[in-house]
């Protein structure tokens, strides 16, 4: 049996060609390994909320679609390093989610094409079935399927990158997506002063930023990530002015149609002023401009 196993092993290349190409294509900077176990990084990455939640909030609040808030797909040729490609893949991912939620099919197709291009260059293009997504995007009746398939694609990419011990790209992808969602929310909030829910939505991003900073702290040896970490810490300084107070109160529950429906009695209060929003927006825009330019 051992001989047969050796025989089988000798026939197996060990790594698929796309994996080899992927590893070869990485920047030297992004080859710097993390100082902590990949499983820990994976569990923190898993916590980061989907930018789709913010887009859904904006639409539900009656905020109109605004394409000028997004990063133009025409900027694609600017992204030549894996660092920039991964960040902008996250940014375009958020933009795609935003256009999908607002059922802006034509805009969505442009973002999809940019995403596919970046994903191919990062050798993770196999996760995007552009034909299926493109077909779904042509009909607004397919919105649910479109959102489902694109979310699944991004989840698969993150899982794949972590399996390949390339969580750094996953961190960049999620950070890019978060920065873009932050930027959109801040711009919308600035145009709608007094919109408490939007202001609070910005304030509560303090929790997510803490997780992102924790992730970046594992890659301090990576020059590009260390530079971005410095900018994110400046953003953190603005968030430190915001107080989030959590009060726990036992919840109650009832079963309705086979679903346990919880009544959450806990609360959070978020103390954030319009001035805080302005400062956070300024820092966020500065970071985003570095990423997309």
């Amino acid at each position, binding site marked *: 049996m051992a001989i047969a196993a050796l025989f089988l092993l000798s026939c197996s290349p060990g790594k698929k060609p796309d994996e080899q190409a992927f590893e070869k294509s990485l920047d030297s900077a992004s080859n710097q390994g993390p100082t902590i176990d990949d499983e820990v990084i994976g569990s923190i990455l898993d916590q980061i909320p989907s930018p789709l939640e913010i887009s859904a909030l904006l639409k539900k609040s009656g905020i109109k679609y605004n394409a000028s808030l997004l990063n133009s797909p025409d900027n694609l040729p600017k992204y030549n390093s894996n660092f920039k490609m991964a960040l902008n893949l996250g940014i375009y991912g958020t933009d795609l989610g935003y256009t999908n939620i607002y059922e802006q099919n034509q805009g969505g197709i442009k973002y999809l094409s940019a995403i596919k291009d970046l994903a191919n260059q990062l050798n993770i293009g196999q996760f995007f079935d552009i034909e299926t997504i493109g077909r779904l995007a042509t009909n607004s009746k397919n919105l649910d399927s479109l959102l489902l398939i694109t*979310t699944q694609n991004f989840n698969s990419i993150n899982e794949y990158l972590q399996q390949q011990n390339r969580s750094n790209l996953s961190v960049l992808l999620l950070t890019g997506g978060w920065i873009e969602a932050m930027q959109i929310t801040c711009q919308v909030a600035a145009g709608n002063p007094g919109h408490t829910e939007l202001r609070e939505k910005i304030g*509560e991003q303090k*929790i997510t930023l803490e997780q992102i900073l924790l992730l970046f702290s594992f890659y301090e040896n990576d020059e590009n990530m260390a530079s971005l970490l410095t900018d994110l810490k400046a953003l953190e300084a603005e968030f430190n002015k915001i107080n989030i107070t959590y009060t726990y109160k036992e919840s109650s529950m009832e079963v309705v149609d086979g679903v*346990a429906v*919880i009544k959450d009695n*806990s609360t*959070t209060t978020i103390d954030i002023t319009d001035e805080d929003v302005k400062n956070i927006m300024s820092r966020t825009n500065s970071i985003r401009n570095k990423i997309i330019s």
Partner: protein
Amino acid sequence: MKRIILSILLISIASFGSARLVGQCDAENLSNACIPKLSGGFNFLKSYKIDGQGGAKDKIEYSYVFTKGTQYMINLCAGGNGPDGLVVTLYDSKRNLVASSKVNGQFISAIAYPCNATGIYYIQYTFDGSATYCGGSAMGFKR
């Protein structure tokens, strides 16, 4: 002769491999099967694999930042009709109990959580009299 020996060896390996597959937990398949079972209006966010490794693991935990004003649904899928002793319990960042899918001794297949307090929450899966220690779960949100 060499060919015969090699064939016997390969068949032995294949049989050994398939024997191992019997009884293995296909948590990925079960978590994917859970996605379409999310109630209407919920947008898919995450799927979770629940592999108790035949009872060797008594809990599997994930975490997520839930946000105020958003309603989340977490459902459970096991091989059969019900959740097969699979329980999902939600804890806040300070490990206070927020929700459980085991209500008055009854195993429920899904929980709906309209979040009123933003923060990190722990999504813990445990087994209570489970036959397979295997399942999947999907999480969705709606505003």
